[in-house]
């Protein structure tokens, strides 16, 4: 196990493109850290820099209190699972798992012990004599993970290891990865663009965009208190609803108006907004689909026309528009709503997220949480 520190890490290419900008992060021992973000956000580049496969343009990378910027990948004592498994097709599963150990000149008996133990953990003991082309996607993935486990490296890196699997197998492997992390207690840095994977696996998630960290926090905190509109929109499925509003004052209350409708805000929240001088200014209101209800307090409702109704068994998803703003809501399965209908949805005011329309920043981020970015 090792801790990893990335200090002002940058990656720029000859054409001037900066893939990663001033990346600062400390990964604690035994942590399951997830790097998540849309395609091209620099998450894989960051992982490859940690692995030593890509050169670090600027900054310092420390693994286990050792500056490793100029060390070759094999000198960093880490192992990596690749998206396409990277199994050697001409070797059997056993040989694949033993290859890294052999290269390191480890004793044959020790190799045998480690390979068999890893195979037992991953339940692939019966596959040891097979070649990769005789394995299913899930089995290949287990072998790839097995090859990594046997190394007993300080740090495990995983680059979208589940993205080649079908949905069912992916959720199954997700559970197994979580179990494996509990069992091994290893430090894992895991790259994915799938926010469900990020939320379920990570002890901490780093959301990236355009080469920069947007927010690094525990999954629940990230969901509850996103630092900005990007993070709020990225985490959660279906994505958070964003309604662009203008703040009007009516007596002691505020109305967040959009088109002919408004959401009424009173009490402490209204006071805070007034204190922050938001009267007359634009605010983007973020409401998660599950924070809409069919009943609630007057003034917190919005009217929407349902375009599509999706019955998912445990819940109903409705999609539609309200004042030309797309809205999705998650309702209980017994709700009697139909496509084509107009319904009143009541927003849970306590769960509203308010973003500055210009900067996209969550204006109550610091007040709601610990404020650490």
């Amino acid at each position, binding site marked *: 196990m090792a801790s990893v520190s990335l200090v002002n890490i940058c990656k720029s290419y000859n054409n001037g493109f900066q893939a990663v900008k001033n990346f600062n992060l400390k990964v604690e021992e035994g942590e399951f850290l997830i790097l998540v973000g849309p395609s091209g956000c620099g998450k894989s580049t960051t992982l490859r820099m940690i692995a030593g496969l890509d050169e670090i343009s600027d900054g310092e990378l420390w693994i286990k209190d050792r500056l490793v910027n100029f060390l070759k990948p094999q000198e960093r004592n*880490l192992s990596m699972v*690749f998206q396409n498994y*990277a199994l050697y097709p001409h070797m059997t599963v056993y040989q694949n798992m033993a290859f*890294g150990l052999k290269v390191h000149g480890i004793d044959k008996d020790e190799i045998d012990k480690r390979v068999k133990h890893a195979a037992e953990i991953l339940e692939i003991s019966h596959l040891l004599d097979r070649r990769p082309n005789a394995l299913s996607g899930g089995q290949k993935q287990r072998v790839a993970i097995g090859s990594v486990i046997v190394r007993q490296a300080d740090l495990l890196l995983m680059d979208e290891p589940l993205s080649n699997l079908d949905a069912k197998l992916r959720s199954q492997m997700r559970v197994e990865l979580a179990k494996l992390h509990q069992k091994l207690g290893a430090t894992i840095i895991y790259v994915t663009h799938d926010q469900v994977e990020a939320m379920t696996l990570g002890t901490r998630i780093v959301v990236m965009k355009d080469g920069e960290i947007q927010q690094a926090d525990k999954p629940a905190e990230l969901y509850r208190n996103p630092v900005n509109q990007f993070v709020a929109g990225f985490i959660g499925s279906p994505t958070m609803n964003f309604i662009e509003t203008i703040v009007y004052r009516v007596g002691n209350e505020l109305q967040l108006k959009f088109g002919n409708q408004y959401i009424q805000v009173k009490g402490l929240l209204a006071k805070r907004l007034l204190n922050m001088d938001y009267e007359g200014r634009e605010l983007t209101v973020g409401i998660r689909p599950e924070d809409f209800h069919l009943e609630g307090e007057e003034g917190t409702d919005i009217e929407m026309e349902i375009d599509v109704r999706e019955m998912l068994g445990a819940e109903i998803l409705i999609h539609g528009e309200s004042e030309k703003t797309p809205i999705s809501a998650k309702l209980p399965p017994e709700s009697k709503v139909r496509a084509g209908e107009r319904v009143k949805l009541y927003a849970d005011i306590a769960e509203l997220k308010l973003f500055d329309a210009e900067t996209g920043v969550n204006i109550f981020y610091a007040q709601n949480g610990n404020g650490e970015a």
Partner: protein
Amino acid sequence: MENIIAKSPEHISREELIALQKLENQKAKIKRRSETGILIGANVVMAILILLPLLYAISIAFMPSSELFTTAMNLIPQHPTLENFHQALVKVPLVRFVINSFVVAACITFGQIISCSLAAFSFSFLEFKGKNILFMIVMATMMIPGEATIISNYLTVSGWKWLDSYQVLIVPYLTSAMGIFLFRQFYMSFPISLYESAKIDGCSNIRFIFRILLPLTKSAIGAMAVYTFINAWNMYMWPLLVTGSNELRTVQIGIGMLDSVDSQSITLMIAGVVMIILPSISIFIVGQKQLIRGMFSGAVKG
């Protein structure tokens, strides 16, 4: 049957339907068989046309001279004989030439596989300044015909006192731009993550090449080996220029020696030719699958 076809589905009986199905199946079978027959027939005709010179050469090799020089059209020997082969082996040291050619072709093939795969590895897996320009220069050498450099090469090797030796036949051909290109194309479709994974595992480049890359690119090696061996076996101009003694002559020049001004014998020469094309043909037959697979690898996403 037309009556059945004209009937609507509600009025057709089960028996009639089965009969109709049988008839249609029969028709389709006849059509398919006739198409296959025509294709096979056309292929056989083309194959005979293409192979005719070779088959006729084999036939002549077994013919006594007296049969060849007649006005009758003797395509097949009336009195087959092995005398031509015997004479060819007695008149010139053909076995020695075959061994020479074999040694030279084998060394060149081995050398090219090693050097070209190493160069191609650098061009496809390593990152260094001027990589693309260097590769372009290597490719550009393919545009220079061998004849253009043959004199200067001759002067160079004669300056080194290498004439009439094995090394003069082998060393100048130990690498080829074509081979580098072929291997590089093959390596371009090789998953880079295998290389990266091996690197993280602590594998050196050399170990990666010999333990992972080469075993996984057998078809490229096969293609390269067949192509290079046949080319080296058929080399004529260079060995003619740089070798003088019988001990070092290659087979292609040896065959020329069978054609003497004093006693020209077509049957004798053809018998020699038939003997020396056997190794290259057998190598081609053995390696043709590899050759085709290797030549077209990387052409489409696989």
